[in-house]
Every structure is written in C-alpha cells, then in structure tokens.
C-alpha cells in the first residue's frame, strides 16, 4: 500500500513539475510580465510542496500505526473476554489475531479470536482508508496553496532554496535524533529495571547471575522473590572483568602502539613510513569478529596447551587471550594518533634540545614526549573507551560466567558479553533479566561518553597549545 502511495506521489510530482514550468511560461507570455525566476524553479516549487508534506505524513503515520492498532486490538480482545495475565500473553494473542487475519494461523480459532480478527480487519481497513484520504487531502491543500503562489509570480528560486535549506537542516538533525533515540531507549528500560532492583544493589553487588530472573514479570514480583533477585544483578564482577581485559589489552597496545608511533614520527624514512603505516592500520580495519574467531580457535587453545606443558591450568576462554587479541586490535588507534600528536610538536623544541647536546632518544624522552603528553594520554583514553565497548572479541573468546578474579588465566566476563548473552535468542520483555541488558547498555554508554569527552578535551587543549 505504502509503495503504491509513494509511486502515486512521485508520478504526481513529476507531472506537476512540467505543469508548473509550462504554466508560468504561458502566463508570462500571455500577460507580458517578467517572471521572478526561471520557469523550472516554479516546477521545483510545486514538486517540493506536493511531495514533502505528504511523504513526511506517510512516514510519521507508518511509524505510529502498528502501536496504535495493537493497543486498540488488545483492548477489544479484552472486551470480548480474552484472558491474559501479562504483556507477553497479550502480545501472543495479538500475533494470533494478526495471523488469523492474514490466513496463516492453523490452530484452533475460538469465538473471541474470531471476533477480534474481524475487528482487526475492520481497523486495518479504517486506518488504510483514512491514511489514503488524509494523504490526498494534504496533497490537494499543498498543491492549491503552491499553485496560488506561482500564479502570483513569487520568487520561486528563493522559496525553493528556503525549503531545501530546511531539508538540509533536517538531515543534520538526524544526529540529534539518534542520540535522543539512544538515550530514551536505554533510559526507558533502565528505569523499569531500577524500579525493581535498587540502583545501589546493582552498582555495588558482587554477584551477577541474571538467569535467576528467567521468565518473570517485573511488575508482579513479590517481596520474597525480590529478596532472591536482589543480589542477582551485581555490577561489580562485570566492571572488574571489563577493566581487567581492557587493562591487559592496554599492556599490549600502549607500548607497541606508542613505540611504533614514535618510530614512525621520529626515525622512519618517508618510504618506510608510507609502507608500514597503512599496513598497521589494516589491523583497525579487520572486523572484530575475525579477531574473535582467531582468539577463540587459535590463541585460546594455544595458551591452554602452553599452560598444560608448564603445569598451569589455563581456561580456554582466558582473560589473557581475549585481552591480548584486543590489544593487538587497538595498536593502530594508539600508533596513528600518537604519530599525529608527536608530528605536531614544533621542531624548535627538538632543535633546542639538540643544541645543548642531547641525543635523539634523549630529546624524544625528555622533550618531545612531555610536550606531547596530553595528546598521547588522550589517544590512550580513546583506545580504552574502544576496548570497553568492544563486543565480538570478548563474546567469542572471554567467558560467560561472572567470576571476580585477577588471575589472567581464568575466564572472566564483560559488560558487552553479558548484553549479548541476555539478548540473544528469545527474550521476554518486562523481565528484569532483559531490562538489565539495557541498564548495562546505559552504563556502557555513559562510561564511553565520559572517556571520550575527557580524551577529546585533552587532545583539543594540546592542539591549541601549539597552534
């Protein structure tokens, strides 16, 4: 239906373009007046007025129609006498009604379902009809308005440009809308979660076992059940595991990345730099699922084998394997950024140091690096935020159980792993288990936001210093 409507709108717009173009031409010849714009701009003017309001309306309508119909249908089903205890059952009944309407339901159909399906068909019809009527109303109104405008010989080019400028502005607003969408979708479920689980129990609890909350409606939890659930959502093991793996990753990435950055900026010839820099940056372009596969199938078993030979028990999903591979993934983030930062240290500082007899490495260690330190710290912080938000490596190579451990040979879990584990497969909405994933997402979002803010401030301040 929507495709037909869009097709009609575009045909209508195209014909209006030619109409507007020739109409204004004839008006100008007939009445012998000078047009305020080229004829084609009158065509564009009509096209914009015909298409934008109707398409925007269609989009908004399509976004809200399913939710509205759903709530109406569930209500009618309840009035018909359908019994459901929570949202999941209501959803199930709604899906059944929809399937009956589409003729794809093969179970038993009782009178309640039948009546509701009829009501559903009625509402769908009503909604579709009113959608079509409203769209044509909008098109007619806007076309009448714009035709009146062009008859009065408006400044069509200026008017078209104003509309297009609005369109440009609207596109740039998508960024704000995305941010708002992220914040609201995370907050919405997190607030529900924190209305069941006390936020302090979450932040300071030391036990994470969300599977205990399996299939349980958040709104109907008894006090006894709550006591049991209270300590199932402790955040401490997750943040500990996440920081631990990120720490191991930094132990690999910071020295290797920093030294490569220094070498490329200070020592390497142009030729070496031109070859080695893109090759190192390949590491940043490889999809993380590839690293995960490598960590899980090659590095993990290798470490276990080595550990066995040394008489150590190494888990095949050790924090060490995940952290090491993550560190390698992060090397180019640090090396490229610190290369840039070191390059922008003014040459006069180095010359001064050479003039008093320092060797190159002494200059780097005692002059260049201290001067570039804020920028380097910024790049490391960016890398840390990348590490804690990284998902696939830890999902595939780190463990699933939340152990509070500082032994890199044991398995440990992270925030992102838990989000994936909770949300993969069938989820029941309104269970504290599902909601906890959004609370974790919110925590992750805030943590990366803060890290990025500090890092960007540090880099910016540093840049300003030498500009």
């Amino acid at each position, binding site marked *: 239906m929507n495709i037909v409507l869009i097709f009609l709108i575009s045909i209508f717009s195209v014909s209006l373009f030619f109409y507007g173009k020739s109409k204004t031409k004839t008006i100008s010849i007939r009445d012998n007046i000078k047009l305020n714009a080229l004829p084609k701009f009158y065509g564009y003017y009509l096209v914009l007025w015909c298409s934008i309001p109707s398409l925007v309306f269609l989009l908004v309508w399509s976004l809200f129609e399913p*939710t509205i119909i*759903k709530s109406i249908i569930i209500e009618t089903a309840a009035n018909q006498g359908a019994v459901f205890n929570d949202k999941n059952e209501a959803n199930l009944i709604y899906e059944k009604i929809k399937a009956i309407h589409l003729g794809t339901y093969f179970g038993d159909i009782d009178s309640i379902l039948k009546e509701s399906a009829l009501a559903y068909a009625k509402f769908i019809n009503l909604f579709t009809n009113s959608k079509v009527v409203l769209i044509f109303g909008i098109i007619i109104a806007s076309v009448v308005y714009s035709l009146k405008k062009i008859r009065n010989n408006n400044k069509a080019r200026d008017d078209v440009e104003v509309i297009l400028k609005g369109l440009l502005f609207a596109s740039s607003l998508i960024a704000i809308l995305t941010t708002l969408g992220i914040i609201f979708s995370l907050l919405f479920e997190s607030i529900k979660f924190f209305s069941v689980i006390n936020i302090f129990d979450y932040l300071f609890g030391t036990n994470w076992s969300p599977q205990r909350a399996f299939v349980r409606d958040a709104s109907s939890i008894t006090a006894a059940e709550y006591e049991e659930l209270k300590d199932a959502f402790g955040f401490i093991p997750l943040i500990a595991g996440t920081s631990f793996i990120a720490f191991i990753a930094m132990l690999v990435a910071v020295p290797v990345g920093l030294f490569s950055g220094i070498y490329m900026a200070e020592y390497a010839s142009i030729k070496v730099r031109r070859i080695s820099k893109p090759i190192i940056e390949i590491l940043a372009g490889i999809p993380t699922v590839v690293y995960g596969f490598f960590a899980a199938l090659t590095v993990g078993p290798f470490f276990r084998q080595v550990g066995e030979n040394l008489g150590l028990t190494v888990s095949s999903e050790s924090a060490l394997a995940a952290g090491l591979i993550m560190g390698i993934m992060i090397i180019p983030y640090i090396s490229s950024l610190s290369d840039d930062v070191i390059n922008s240290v003014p040459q006069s500082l180095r010359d001064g140091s050479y003039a008093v007899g320092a060797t190159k490495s002494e200059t780097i260690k005692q002059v260049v690096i201290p001067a570039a330190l804020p920028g380097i710290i910024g790049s490391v912080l960016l890398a840390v935020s990348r590490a804690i938000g990284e998902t696939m490596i830890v999902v595939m190579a780190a463990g699933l159980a939340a152990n509070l451990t500082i032994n890199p040979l044991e398995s440990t879990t992270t925030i992102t792993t838990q*989000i994936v584990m909770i949300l993969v497969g069938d989820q029941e909405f309104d269970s504290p288990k599902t909601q906890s994933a959004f609370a974790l997402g919110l925590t992750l979002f805030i943590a990366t936001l803060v890290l990025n803010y500090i890092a960007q401030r540090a880099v910016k301040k540093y840049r300003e210093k030498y500009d």
Partner: protein
Amino acid sequence: MTKEERLKKRHQAEKRFRFYGLTSIFVALLFVVILVQNIFSKGSSAFKKTVITTEIFFDQELLEIQNGASQDEIMEADFYDVMIENLIKAYPAKDRDEEDELLKLFSGEAEIEIKKAFLKDNNLIGKTITLDLTASDDIDQLHKGNYPRDLPEERRRISNFQLIIYDYFVEKKKISKNFNNYFFTNGDSRDPEIAGIGGALVGSFYSILICLLLAFPIAVLASIYLEEFAPKNKITDFIEININNLAAVPSIVYGLLALQILLATIQLPRSTPLVAGITLALMTLPRIIIPCRASLKAVPPSIREGALAVGASKFQSVFHHVVPLALPGTLSGTIIGLAQALGETAPLILIGMVAFVVDIPSSPVDPSSSLPVQVYLWSESAERGFVEKTSATIMMLLTFLIVMNFVAVYLRQKFEKRWN
C-alpha cells in the same frame, strides 16, 4: 665514569630506543601476517569439496516413473531407494551394519544430487551413469588432511571399517576433490559439507544497500548544511558535538537502540536486512559525515566566491560548484564507512540475525544472516568442517573489504583535485 664511557652508554641507550621502536612496528606487522596466514591456511580448503565417484543405475521398479517423465513427476518421485541400492554397491559390504557405515560416508545431499542428474536427462531409466556424489563432512575433512587418523578408534568420528573403505576408494581413485559450488550457492545448514554462505552474501548485500541508500544522502546533506549554511550558534555546536560523540558510541549500543525503537516500537520484522540496514545506517552516518565535511572544507573559498561573483545564489554556488569538486572525497569516505558497516557484527546479533536461516532471502524483509554473523554462528559450531567454512567466510569478507578500500583510495587519488 669517564666522559667516553658515559658517551658510549648514551649512544647505546639511543640504539636500544631505536630498536624498541623498530621491534614494535615489526610486532604489529608480524601479527598482520600471522592472522592472514592462519585464516588462509585454514580456509582455503573450503573452496574444494570431496566427492566420491559412484555408479548409479536407475531402476524403473524402484523409481516408478517412465523415461521422459515430466519435471513434476520427477520431483514427486522417491529417489531414496535408488540411492541406497546404488551406494551400497560402492564397496562389497558384508552385512547390514557395514552397509550402514558405508552409507554414512556419503552426504545426506546424495539423494538430491541423483535426482538433479535425472532432471537434467530424463531418459536415464534402465541406464547406468557415473556421478560425483558429495562425501560426508568426516570423509571430506579426512581427505583434506584436517582429520587425524592415528587417534584410537573410540575418539574418532570415523570407524576403522570406514577407514578401510576410504583407503579402498583412494586406491581405486574413486575419491577426488571438486570445486565447492555449495559454499557459494547454499544457505546455512547443520551439515558442514553442504553449508554455504549464499544466504549470508545476499543478506549482507541487502543490508549494505539499504545502509548506503539511507546513510549517503543524509550524510551528504547534513555535511553540506554544517559546512556551508549553518550559522554559528548553539544549535550548530550541539549538532557537531552529537556527531562526534555518536562516532565513538560502541556499536552494541546501536543494537540496543534498534531493538527498542525499530523492533519493539515500530515493529519492523526481526532478523531482516531491512532492520540491519537501518541500524547500520544510523551507526555509519557520523562516520561518513566526518570525512564528507573534511572534503567540503578542502574546496578553496575562491570557488564559492567565483560562482557568487557571476550572480549564482549561495545554493547554486554550493550545489553546482563545491559539491561536485568534493564528491570524490565524499564517495571514498562513504565507501570506507560502508566497509566498516559490512564487518559489523554485534548490533546485528541483537536484532536477531543469529537465527538459523536455510533459505536464501529473496527480499530485504525476509529473515536472513550476514557474512560476519555467519562467521560468529559457525565458529560456535562443534563440527570440524565448520572451522574451514568459517575461515573461508572470513576470506570472502576480507576480500570485499580490501576491494572496497582499494576503490576508495583509487577514487581519491584519481579524481580528487589538489589545491595548492
């Protein structure tokens, strides 16, 4: 310590420092090599499949169809008995158990392969042909040398008797390796020997296409606004801060956004390339806007001023002169953004693309998988045959990424004007 000794020490320190730097670069490069070598050595064998050359006799009594049967009749006909009758003749088995073990050397797809041969030529009743039938996963891996045969029998998936048959096949030159067309044309399967990335390829293609159609126009329009028209005020600053932050938000958060807004609120169909494309577009948008703005910024003001001087409006100067000049940079930024989107896994897992989908999606609203998600799915499987399939999928994925990056670099170098 004398002066000379001190100087020597300082020079040694200098050499050491240089050595550390060189070693670091070497370590990073070494890792690229190890990773690529590891994937290629594991994955290259997946492009071949092991086949067993078998003689097939089409018995009319078993098939119950005539020569020249129509397509529908052949599709209806039961080729199972024909398959069993012929396959057990491949090796002189003594009893029922041995016959069962013999049959297990062939893929479950053998029946369909025989049927396909008959579909191609419907005059085969009463005749005998030789067919290359796909071997089972275990034989496939054994023949490719990925399976150790010196393990004790109880720890092997292949019995001693099956090894004897295998050696007999090898001796008679009945077993060989063919090009693995299943890998490219089939969807996912529980049997590694017939599992393919066809569905994932199509799913990835649709997702990236939708991502491109949404992200490219919006990103270009937004960067034109911010670079050329935006007034210096709080709203513009706010938009810029938002874009920079969004570029650094972990991808899994976009998965949560899609789950809550696209699936729960707008009720788009789960596991589909449509939802994947929209999610990837939201994620890629800031990553495209940043290079787009850079390439618009690189166009010198003299171009704009020249256009304005001959009476063009601000809009005409931007759209007729600045945008075409900035287009190569814009396009290459977009391609690099899309390449990142192609490898993205975490948000797609959250929107349900991990579902087991056998059929190849025929439209963007069919459930489907995608290349990186297929890598994740197969890497979780226990069968040995999936290891090479996973590595081969990664090889395909990396090939696409390399091609896309080369196109981006080429576009930039070939068409971008240098303003000096």
